[in-house]
């Protein structure tokens, strides 16, 4: 790892910060309505796509959308500020519990339908945002492995935490919530899984668009400045600590929204859904997809949701003995993820995103500047640790 990062360490900061300035400058001139139009078009396309899918595929689509909320936040956190969080599953869980507890309180108060959903989502955002803010305050003072350690503890402590407060959080069994059916108006047109996919897509669209706006605006520029050279950024009047806390909180909020969507889709939240393995898979998703790229985060989400299912289907098709199949089901996906991670990072250090054909408007001239940026984005952790 060190050999690969030496060059960008010396050459990276200068080129990337200039580049970041260029891009940020260009982006800030780009009017926000364009972002909104893009978001709207993609959302409409995604919702249109749900009509092509059968119910189970729509359920998987909803899972992808929920995961995307979390990976989008994570990819920007790692890619833009260089803060590596291994505990995003715990932040999703915070959102899930926030959603479930608010929803149950509202159900008891006799509120249901859209108001219940919106208020519960607000509860989810509040819970994960608050946790993220607290973590972010710690995170701004920690670097590299120490920060990763803190976030890792969070996800490992989750089952114990839910067990200790089992009066409210119901231990391993988790919290169940009332079922939200398809609204009366749409009941004849769409099935419940498709409705859930719609809700998941809409929530993901809102939160990811917000992240994209944040990235494209001056906050994003400051984040890149802090990532590339914290001292230089401070000298320019950027309050590095505040920028990092903001990034962590924003990232937590979107993770929480993802947890809320998962809770909405499955009508329950339990610590078993947010294991350490899942938390690490979120990191795998953003690395495979390409750090710092929202499209990459989406592709990564597809991979981590669909791959275990594909592998299971494939092993099911093979005529294995029950014992061998049983041993494979749990372990094969882990193995494949490991191999995939190695292959992707070896072949395309920028992730799948980097392997996709470049958009025509980038043109040939942008290629040289693209290189250092992706390299430094792919290895932001050493950059920050060594300062």
């Amino acid at each position, binding site marked *: 790892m060190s050999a690969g990062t030496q060059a960008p360490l010396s050459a990276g900061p200068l080129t990337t910060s200039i580049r970041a300035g260029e891009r940020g400058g260009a982006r800030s001139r780009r009017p926000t309505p364009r972002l909104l139009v*893009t978001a709207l078009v993609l959302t409409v396309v995604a919702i249109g796509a749900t*009509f092509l899918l059968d119910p189970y595929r729509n359920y998987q689509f909803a899972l992808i959308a929920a995961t995307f909320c979390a990976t989008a936040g994570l990819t920007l956190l790692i890619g833009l500020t260089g803060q590596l969080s291994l505990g995003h599953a715990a932040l999703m869980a915070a959102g899930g519990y926030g959603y479930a507890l608010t929803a149950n309180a509202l159900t008891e108060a006799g509120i249901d339908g859209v108001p219940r959903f919106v208020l519960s989502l607000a509860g989810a955002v509040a819970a994960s945002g608050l946790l993220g803010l607290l973590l972010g305050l710690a995170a701004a003072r920690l670097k590299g492995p120490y920060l990763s350690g803190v976030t890792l503890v969070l996800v490992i402590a989750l*089952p114990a935490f*839910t*067990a200790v407060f089992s009066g409210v959080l119901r231990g*391993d069994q988790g919290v169940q919530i009332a079922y939200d059916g398809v609204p009366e108006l749409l009941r004849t047109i769409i099935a419940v899984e498709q409705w859930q996919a719609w809700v998941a897509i809409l929530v993901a669209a809102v939160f990811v668009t917000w992240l994209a706006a944040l990235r494209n605006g001056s906050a994003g520029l400051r984040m890149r400045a802090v990532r590339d050279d914290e001292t230089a950024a401070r000298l320019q009047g950027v309050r590095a600590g505040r920028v990092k806390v903001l990034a962590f909180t924003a990232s937590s909020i979107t993770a929480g929204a993802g947890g809320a969507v998962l809770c909405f889709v499955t009508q329950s939240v339990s610590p078993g859904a947010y294991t350490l393995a899942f938390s690490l898979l979120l990191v795998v998703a953003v690395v495979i997809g390409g750090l710092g790229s929202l499209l990459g985060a989406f592709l990564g989400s597809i991979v981590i949701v669909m791959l275990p299912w594909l592998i299971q289907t494939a092993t099911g098709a093979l005529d294995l003995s029950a014992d061998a199949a049983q041993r494979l089901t749990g372990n094969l996906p882990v193995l494949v993820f490991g191999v995939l991670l190695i292959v992707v990072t070896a072949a395309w250090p920028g992730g799948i995103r980097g392997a996709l054909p470049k958009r025509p408007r980038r*043109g040939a001239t942008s290629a040289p500047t693209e290189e250092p940026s992706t390299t430094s984005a792919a290895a932001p952790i050493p950059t920050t640790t060594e300062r």
Partner: protein
Amino acid sequence: MSHARPRSAPRRTVAAVAAASALLVAMSACSTPSGGDPAEAAPGVTDDTVTIGTHQPLTGPAAAGYSSISAATTAYFAYLNENGGVNGRTIEYLVKDDGYNPANTQTVVRELVQDDEVFAILNGLGTPTHTSVLDYLNQNEVPDLFVASGSTNWNQPEKYPWTFGFNADYVTEAEALAQYADDEFAGKSVCVLGQDDDFGDEFIEGLENVLGEGSLASVQRYSVSNQDVVAQIGAMQAAGCEVNMLATVNGFTALAIGTAAKLGYQAQWMSSSSGGDAVTLAGFLGDAAPLLLEGFVTTNYLPYAPGNEWDDLFRQINDEYNDGAPFDGNTVFGMSVGYLFAEALAKAGDTPTRQGIVDAIQSGDLVGNGLVPLAFGADSHAAYKGVSITTVADGVQDFIGVTYVSDGSGGVEPYDGEAVPLENDGVPTS
């Protein structure tokens, strides 16, 4: 370059919106809910097969105690299919692993219902796991038959008309154990270690129904995700507990007994049938098992007893269709589930429908193969009405002839009715 952007973007946008709208219009029929044609065959039913599915812990913390159940059910169905199946249809049993994790259960059950289009879910295992799909299955009107858990949640015909339990419920079971403890070990201090969910809650409720509220000297809880009960067992030892009730899954029954042995703490152990299979426990406890399990008390409502005719048949099926896997209480449990389903399917008639099989169970005509009668009826979705006490003597777990059924008012009464006899070699006929 900057000039090219504003010009190309709207065009692309327009094209994308147009394409998306076209998709919406053209495909709007694809995922639309169907009206449900009554003449159409039920999902999972063809002229010669019925496909059903289940969620089981084949991996994870509960696997070692329960993964043999679905294998036994599969073996029974293989035996049944070879003997003509039910009404000319063979039964295909799809087993999915959920690792005893509610989050996985939700995924695999959706897969079974939507992707594999099963006729029914049979014997989904676990209280926390199955609770998480209870609403889903009932919303989708999928028969949710004979859940492998004694939670009273399954017995809510008004709220969950499609769900039926299999185990004797935990409240009744705890009442029976408490009654037995009160008779046999009068005056000793009784404590409980319960799983941190509805399983533990209901078991404790049953104990207190008989022994009185606040009569338990120590109430300890554990969570499945934490494989360490030293704190709980230590607290029980400190509280001077002499009779320890366990609302634990097999792995944790063994863990509790093993931990106590390591602490040099001797007590009378009494466990729910869910975690009381001596052969399975011996597998966990290793060489010390005969010593540690001697005198161990649990309950059962199924004919798992040396020399019983059902037991003999199941042993034979186990040898022939299950590669002679170790024969234990789980094997009898799994095969009994298979038998009860076959009986229900046979009663559902020549063209089984989802409503039809529910009606057949609610008719109250099912007898099963238990030691006590089934409680199924129009307003009861609970299965076995009571339990029989078993003890381990000289390493053999067997009934001692003490059987209780619920008296319906927070207590149990002795039961001396006959067990269900074996008929037609365990192949139900309609």
